[in-house]
């Protein structure tokens, strides 16, 4: 799971002394940066690659006098941080790129009211994409939201730039975005620690409607003017503070403009190509507003320039605008001339190849390795052995056929979470996975569009709390006939087992009021509600069949804990074993479950990897010969 489990037990990265040099993941370094910058309120919603910041603070910072808790969604998280910061406390809010979309409403207005205590927002983008639904480039979001944005290129800077963001935020009285990419968040590097600072809490809050009430249009116009003035100060303030996050390396009349992790690719690519002189590298740490003075000075005397960045031509367009304004006409290479792709992440070799074309040096032969490898079966991530979602989808598909429907006439709308892995064979279950909570609203929309066959929405418990509640409210209110199945494994599983609003104690030991799914669902006024253990496959299939034929909004809460979490808490009490004498090699078990603890052995019979089995018994459920038996551990 997400990397925090892998952290040193004996060395606490939040408490280790200044000057210590530790191997820290970028997100762990950001967590340390929060402690070094006197941040008091830390909140966010789990999302790869951002989650380990809060997980690290929760695990190692229990007695640090900070508030570190997950919020129900990113919009709420941002507003919590904003509320803290307009009262003078320092806050940090973390989210993955799509989380920024969810929080965008309060973020845009926050640029108008500003803050008093620092507000740092971590926006973790994911070129690749490695674990994200979109490859959105949040540098545009900074421009849209008009919020100063800085970006680190490695774990050391990830830590250091938290402090830069805090200083900048308080000087400008604006939230500051720390924009990262996966290759910074999830990279482990050597990080030298700095001194910690006591957390800054509430100082006071003065009533000031022109600043904090967005109902006054004249006030909004004035605040917009104020905001634009503040943005003009960013580069000057960084210089005043003596902070150099924009750097020039080397000299020459070919310029490479780059930022974030790609700076590392540029430097290593130049080394690989043996280019020691003639090239000037401009590393931009200040993304928004682009550092015009730095770029103007840095590009002086350039014969041609190449902009190396991931995703969109954000810096490229900034450089082009600037040179146009300066009346300078030189060749600019990058995305617009297709030198580098606008999709996917870059790497050293891709950058080296691009640079050979601009600089005119050849690619060394040693880098032109190509290897034929035999065709291999792909290994997409499956649902874990013992995962309750597997049982749920098996019951859903079974219930559908019991109700007399073909698989291709009842769409199963999916949502964001592990259960999206049910899209793969052999389950081939979900038809869509779109955005948080969209399973319910999109299924409802399809009914509104005139589909007279049943529709099913499947959504995880945390995703339901996050964004499913308003969608279900809409479906109930508009009397839409649909089946909603809440897959309740009591945890945010996919991102590393974070708490949900149903917990009575949070990760930090804070007592919390458990909010029960069934109470929320009932309060929304659904027509029918059943709570079922999905491992009772036949029972659940019967309810699915019944609910598919009943009008109204019908909800099933399929409740069983995440298998990984259960095994960690309780250990494995029993496993299953195939009796090779009884097995007829029909593979009903493997084809039915797709369980990764199973395989076909050399004699063509089903077999179970005992150390991977968690004893759910679904394979035995499918066996027509009773050849799979439980073996209890003593």
């Amino acid at each position, binding site marked *: 799971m997400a990397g925090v489990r892998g952290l040193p037990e004996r060395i606490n990265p939040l408490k280790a002394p200044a000057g210590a040099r530790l191997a820290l993941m970028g997100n762990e370094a950001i967590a340390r940066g929060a402690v070094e910058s006197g941040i008091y309120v830390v909140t966010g919603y789990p999302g790869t690659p951002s989650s380990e910041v809060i997980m690290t603070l929760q695990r190692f910072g229990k007695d640090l006098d900070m508030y570190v808790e997950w919020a129900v969604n990113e919009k709420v998280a941002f507003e919590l941080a904003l509320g803290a910061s307009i009262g003078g406390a320092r806050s940090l809010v973390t989210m993955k790129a799509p989380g920024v979309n969810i929080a965008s409403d309060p973020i845009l207005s926050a640029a108008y009211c500003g803050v008093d205590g620092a507000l740092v927002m971590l926006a973790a983008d994911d070129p690749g994409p490695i674990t994200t639904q979109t490859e959105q480039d949040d540098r545009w979001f900074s421009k849209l939201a008009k919020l100063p944005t800085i970006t680190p290129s490695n774990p050391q800077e990830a830590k250091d730039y938290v402090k830069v963001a805090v200083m900048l935020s308080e000087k400008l009285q604006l939230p500051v975005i720390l924009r990262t990419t996966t290759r910074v968040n999830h990279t*482990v590097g050597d990080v030298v620690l700095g001194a910690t600072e006591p957390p800054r809490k509430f100082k006071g809050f003065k009533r000031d409607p022109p600043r904090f009430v967005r109902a006054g249009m004249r006030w909004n116009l004035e605040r917009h003017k104020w905001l634009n003035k503040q943005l003009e100060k960013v580069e000057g303030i960084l210089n005043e503070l003596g902070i150099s996050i924009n750097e020039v390396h080397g000299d020459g009349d070919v310029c490479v403009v780059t930022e974030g992790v790609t700076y590392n690719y540029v430097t290593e690519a130049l080394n690989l190509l043996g280019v020691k002189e003639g090239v000037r590298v401009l590393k931009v740490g200040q993304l928004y507003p682009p550092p015009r003075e730095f770029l103007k000075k840095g590009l002086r005397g350039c014969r041609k320039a190449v902009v190396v960045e991931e995703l969109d031509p954000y810096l490229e367009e900034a450089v082009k605008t600037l040179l146009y304004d300066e009346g300078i006409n030189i060749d600019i290479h990058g995305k617009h001339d297709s030198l580098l792709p606008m999709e996917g992440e870059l790497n050293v070799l891709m950058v080296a190849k691009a640079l050979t074309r601009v600089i005119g040096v050849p690619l060394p032969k040693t880098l032109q390795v190509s290897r034929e490898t035999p065709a291999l079966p792909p290994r997409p991530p499956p649902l874990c052995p013992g995962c309750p979602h597997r049982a749920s989808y098996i019951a859903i598909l079974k219930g559908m056929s019991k109700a007399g429907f073909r698989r291709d006439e009842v769409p199963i709308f999916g949502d964001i979470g592990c259960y999206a892995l049910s899209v793969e064979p052999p389950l081939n279950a979900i038809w869509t996975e779109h955005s948080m909570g969209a399973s319910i609203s999109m299924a409802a929309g399809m009914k509104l569009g005139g589909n007279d066959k049943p529709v099913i929405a499947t959504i995880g418990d945390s995703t339901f709390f996050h964004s499913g509640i308003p969608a279900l409210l809409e479906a109930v209110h508009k009397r839409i006939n649909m089946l909603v199945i809440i897959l309740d494994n009591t945890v945010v599983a996919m991102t590393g087992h974070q708490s949900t609003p149903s917990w009575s104690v949070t990760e930090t030991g804070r007592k919390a009021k458990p909010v029960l799914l069934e109470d929320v669902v009932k309060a929304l006024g659904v027509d029918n509600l059943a709570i079922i253990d999905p491992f009772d496959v036949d029972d659940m299939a019967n309810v699915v069949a019944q609910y598919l034929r009943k009008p109204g909004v019908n909800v099933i809460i399929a409740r069983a804990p995440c298998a990984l979490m259960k095994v960690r808490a309780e250990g494995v009490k029993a496993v299953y074993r195939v009796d090779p004498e009884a097995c007829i090699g029909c593979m009903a078990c493997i084809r039915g479950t797709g369980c990764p603890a199973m395989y076909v052995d050399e004699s063509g019979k089903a077999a179970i990897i005992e150390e991977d089995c968690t004893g759910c018994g679904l394979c035995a459920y499918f066996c027509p010969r009773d050849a799979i038996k439980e073996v209890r551990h003593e």
Partner: protein
Amino acid sequence: MSRGIKEVFNILIASVGGQGGLTLSRTIAIAAVSEGFSVRTGETLGMSQRFGSVTSFVRMGPQNAVMSPTFSEGMAHVMVGLELTESVRNLRYLSEGGKILAADTVKPPITASVGTARMPSKDELVGALTSVDPEAVIVPARKIAYDVGNPRAVNMVMLGVFNRIFGILSDDAVINAILTLLPGRRGETSVAAYKAGIKWAEENKVVQG
């Protein structure tokens, strides 16, 4: 017995999610930093960690020499594979003359078990590795790990074989890193697995130079 390195050294770790590939890369990173090296690792965390293909990049070198968290195809000095299919899948990362160390474990992916893709035999997989590195070291790592009482410590057996061959890190640094990451009994059996890996490498004379 740290031999040290003068240039950046690239290790590719190929594994199936849940086998401990991430723990292995983190162990090497912690040990390398404690030895005064600069390190970078590039990981894929998040969705694919459980039973999916996992590729970890580990890079170490003198201070300030390592910058990129990943490296490109043809740049791994060594590949440490915890599973044969994944070892073959990642061959493109190996440099000319690069070394292959692979556990002899085979975990057929679900795509093979449900019959949507053909699974090569173990001999075919080993053959693919030895066609690239004729001296590829194939380690009965699960058996070694099982014999020291922790069948899950295939990663630590492979770490022992790796470090006995390359000798970049001192045993003390590695053992401290293991115990830092894995406290309690798991740490003890992991250290035992590491030592068993060293012993296997010595007994089977796979040590270079």
